């Protein structure tokens, strides 16, 4: 069995796949990769299954030793990866020779970089997924972020690397944007009309106090009108809620499954991967689209992501 040795872990590095959707009745949120598009492309470039477990690094990457070698692909943000001082290009399979280490640094663009390995990271599944859920300490590698000294088993399917790369235009088409498209939330009518105008015209800034559970936004403070107390209900991924003090929060992959704050809007499915690539202090805006338009964008994106012919040369 081949191994991956964590020599330094980076800011927050966890094992993630597509998550464990479907356990809401147990109070379990799906978790999973914050940028599922990058995870998918990274894996497919290695000819892994799209949802093979990989390492998700946040803002600053780590140093990983491969005593037995491996074939890897880096996807998502550019953390300046190197082997022996030589840069490793993103979105390409690379053979790492036995005893070599992959060194990553601080991000140069977005929030999350995925280190995918041919054969995947070998961790036990919990409720059908290898994803780490940090709040409850379940899933992934011991239910926590990686630490220096951790030694992870690799799936280790030895195979030759094909020189696969994304087709021209594909990465541009899937590039994380800072304008997030939203549909009206279930309590949008709890807010005054001008609140919606503010919502879709003002600039918000991602707060330092953001994580996989949710992204807090600094910006206009919008409050629901009246004093009506909302009854807690299920909260969709990407819901934008305002707390009574007027703080906006985008609920994300490790979200609470229910909540009692009014939800003014919801990020559309086709833009959720963009949320996963937002960094603290990023300035963002929201643009309204209809449910019909949102669904059309989702179907278009799913068709592209499901077609290896359209994705790769």
């Amino acid at each position, binding site marked *: 069995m081949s191994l991956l040795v964590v020599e330094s872990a980076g800011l927050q590095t966890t094992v993630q796949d597509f998550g464990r959707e479907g356990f809401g009745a147990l*109070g379990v949120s799906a978790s999973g990769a914050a940028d599922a598009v990058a995870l998918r492309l990274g894996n497919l470039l290695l000819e892994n299954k799209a949802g093979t477990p990989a390492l998700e690094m946040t803002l600053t990457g780590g140093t990983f030793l491969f005593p037995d070698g491996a074939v890897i692909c880096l996807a998502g943000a550019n953390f300046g990866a190197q082997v022996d001082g030589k840069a490793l290009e993103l979105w390409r399979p690379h053979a790492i020779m036995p005893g070599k280490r992959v060194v990553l640094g601080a991000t140069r663009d977005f929030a999350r970089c995925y280190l995918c390995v041919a054969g995947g990271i070998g961790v036990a599944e919990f409720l059908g997924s290898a994803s780490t859920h940090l709040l409850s300490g379940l899933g992934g590698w011991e239910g926590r972020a990686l630490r220096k000294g951790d030694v992870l088993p690799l799936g280790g399917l030895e195979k030759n690397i094909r020189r696969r790369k994304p087709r021209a235009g594909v990465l541009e088409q899937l590039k994380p944007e800072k304008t997030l498209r939203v549909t009206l939330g279930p309590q949008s009518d709890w807010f005054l009309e001008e609140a919606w105008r503010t919502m879709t015209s003002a600039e918000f800034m991602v707060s330092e106090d953001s994580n996989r559970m949710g992204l807090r936004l600094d910006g206009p403070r919008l409050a629901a009108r009246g004093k009506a107390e909302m009854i807690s209900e299920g909260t969709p991924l990407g819901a934008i809620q305002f707390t009574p003090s007027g703080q906006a929060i985008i609920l994300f992959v490790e979200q609470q499954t229910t909540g009692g704050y009014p939800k003014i809007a919801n990020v559309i499915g086709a833009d959720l991967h963009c949320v996963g690539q937002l960094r603290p202090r990023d300035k963002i805006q929201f643009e309204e689209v209809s449910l019909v338009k949102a669904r059309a964008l*989702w179907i278009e994106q799913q068709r592209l992501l499901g077609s290896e012919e359209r994705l790769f040369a």
Partner: protein
Amino acid sequence: MRFQAASDQALLVYLGEEIGAAVHERVVRLLRLLQQEPIAWVRNIQPAYCSLLITFDAVAVDHAEVQAKLSEYETRAKKLPAAKARLVEVPVCYGGAFGPDLEEVAAQRGLSPEKVVELHIARTYHAYFLGFAPGFAYLGDLPDEIATPRLETPRKEVAAGSVGIAGRQTAVYPFATPGGWRLIGRTPLEMFRRDREPMGLIAIGDQVKFRPVTRAEFLAARRA
């Protein structure tokens, strides 16, 4: 029955507009039918007090189709026989280091700590739903006399097994997590275990009763 689009891939189904046993019974029945006869395009079901949030495969169906199917399910769910509620007993060591907010709750409500405990154990609670964290069951309704708002500043970490109250709800924290509920005691039981079936000690629709135990009994149960 009322429907509300929640996102481009999720629909909220409201079966009433107030917290109570009757509305919740409809939520549980619809959930049961959806679990007994799963629909291929349903990705997740999140029940709550009066509603279910249905996340669906938006490539396969749109909101109107989901709505039509759920209306049909709800009609049939209403005719299901009532499920036998399980009774779950939760031993709790109240006060002291295990219940750091017991004195404060008592003071706020003009009661003795003993009276708060007496009121907390007097009632059989209804498990409305699980949320917040795996195995975290929202139990109600707490007697009015001890209803107390959440802490203004949540604790960064609440010990696993802590029993808290917030408004007219009470719950046990299954894991050491941040938390804003007022803590009045702690149970030695493990609320969520991945090697158990079901994993959660409390499931939606269960009846829950708290039983006071001494510190010695708590520690003995922990060792067992």
